[in-house]
């Protein structure tokens, strides 16, 4: 029963990934002529032909795609037009940096956002609730590049506590992590609160209370599991945005991750790198959605059964 559900979801994710690769390849391939953008303005027609022949760009797009797919399966994303380095190698240097920053900021926002949301739901309409929700709105309404610049002004320029650029130590991580984390925290707290409020008003929670269950028991055993679906969805979506979401912040804090690489590669029109990054961004979204679906299946007995019926 379960297996069928998971299998279906995996197949669907694979199909989406394939569509993604096709789409990215053809859209970029049609709209972007690397020979024109890479070669200097005074390049002759022969230079262009030579350049295209060198990178296999003179062949029909379908054939290029076939070659690209074959290489892709072998983990070969081609070479950078700029310096001829292996794209896979460039990305594998940058990707861990981004995953590290984003992973830490998501963990940071879960650690603070979820308990704050639960607190707000349990103390509905109290001063604490109003304060937490006010802070949450502030957190996710504030553009994070602005917040980042403010942090740099205060903690780096004025107080000299934290470094403003780079990724070498824990101290470097702190500011970008909190900048990204604050806005996530706000949305996690709000989603958690509303999901919890919805469940807490259900009769089985009132019954649990009437039976003498402690508040802890009611929250952890009944309320949280039932409130988990919307919370998992929000967290899953932010994991999907993990790789792409840091573009702005990585540039503000000169964090050497994928986001910064994307900006510099677009600036120099380095097609293979841009192509690979866009595909990775898309794949991470697909993967995150797949994980969310799996979690649903594990959490909700109703989904487990309907999946078996289909």
């Amino acid at each position: 029963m379960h297996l069928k559900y998971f299998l279906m979801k995996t197949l669907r994710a694979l199909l989406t990934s394939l569509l993604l690769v096709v789409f990215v390849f053809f859209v970029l391939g049609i709209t972007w002529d690397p020979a024109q953008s890479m070669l200097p303005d005074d390049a002759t027609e022969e230079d262009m032909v030579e350049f295209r022949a060198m990178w296999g760009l003179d062949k029909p797009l379908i054939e290029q795609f076939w070659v690209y797919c074959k290489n892709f399966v072998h983990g070969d994303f081609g070479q950078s037009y700029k310096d001829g380095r292996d794209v896979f190698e460039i990305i594998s240097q940058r990707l861990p940096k981004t995953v590290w920053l984003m992973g830490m900021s998501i963990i940071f926002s879960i650690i603070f956002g979820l308990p704050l949301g639960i607190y707000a739901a349990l103390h509905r309409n109290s001063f604490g609730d109003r304060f937490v929700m006010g802070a949450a709105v502030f957190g996710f309404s504030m553009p994070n590049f602005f917040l980042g610049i403010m942090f740099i002004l205060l903690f780096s320029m004025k107080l000299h506590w934290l470094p403003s650029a780079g990724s070498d130590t824990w101290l470097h991580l702190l500011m970008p992590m909190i900048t990204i984390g604050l806005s996530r925290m706000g949305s996690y707290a709000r989603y958690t609160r509303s999901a919890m409020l919805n469940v807490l008003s259900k009769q089985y929670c009132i019954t649990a209370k009437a039976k003498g269950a402690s508040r802890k028991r009611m929250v952890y055993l009944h309320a949280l599991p039932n409130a988990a679906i919307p919370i998992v969805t929000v967290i899953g979506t932010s994991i999907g945005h993990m790789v792409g979401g840091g573009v702005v912040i990585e540039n503000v804090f000169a964090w050497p991750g994928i986001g910064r690489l994307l900006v510099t590669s677009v600036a120099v029109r380095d097609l293979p790198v841009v192509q690979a990054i866009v595909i990775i961004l898309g794949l991470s979204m697909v993967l995150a959605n797949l994980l969310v679906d799996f979690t649903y299946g594990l959490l909700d007995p109703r989904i487990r059964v309907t999946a078996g019926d289909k």
Partner: protein
Amino acid sequence: MSDTADTREKLVEAKGLYKHYALKSDKLFAKKRYLKAVDGVSFDIYKGEFFGVVGESGCGKSTTAKLVLDMEHPTKGSVLFKGKEVGKLKPKEWRAIRLDMQMIFQDTLGALDPYMCVGKQIQEPLEIHNIGDPKKRKQMVLDILDAVSLKPIFYDRYPHELSGGQRQRIVLARALIVKPQLLVCDEPISALDVSIQAQVVNLFKRIHKELNLTFMFISHDLRIVKHVCNRIIVMYLGRVVEEAESDELFANTLHPYSQALISAVPSLTPDSQAKRIMLHGDPPNPIDLPKGCRFASRCPKCTPRCLEAEPELVDMGNNHKVACFLVTDK
């Protein structure tokens, strides 16, 4: 009042219960307005009794049940359970009396956690109060499933896999497993099909007899109330208008509202159907109650006096109490 009533042990005593909900005002300095859900209700429930509460929707039946269970705190008045005021218990005592009073509701799907198999949910009260060890608990659950006529295979089922009647029996099993003394049922069968209603009602009756349980049974369905209850109170807009033994109430209905309610019960033998008393209009808004008797605006026998003062509940003998000037002033 007869002597037998006094010697019976009182399990619940509701004394002058009021529950007013403050309403949100759209004006900043406007006078605060209140919704008077329960407005001066007193009654006793004796041990072993099948006590019925009837009235139309919005008359405060459910709020009264919540007050008895101490799930809501009264604005005024008090509830005594076995002689102790429930609102003033220490947390430890409060937790202890949770075992003695259990409840079941109308919406059985909402009353069960959709993410937990029903066996675990029946077992939960035992875990909360540390009764038995895991093995014994499971056995107790299987026993109680048998008592409500469900097979052991239901242990691992989830609520959505069960029918309404099965869920109601699960909810009943969850309430019964701690061997309570008082079972409060808030419209327990209104959501069920008529054929299932009969089954569940008979199950209630059987359990009442076998376990010597006290029931507080809330319903708007007079047929069922007549079938199961020993004693009944009729509520209208937050007040008790009539209180009597079940047979007495149906044989000798005094309050015009009760008369209208009872005349609305369809009879199975066409000839015996008495003339139906039709009530016109809606009950007044429980926020701005008019002066005088609350039923006056719909009462077919309303007199000028009914618009001036509010009648009190008066004992007419034979444990029959009524709040109506037409009856009490004779």
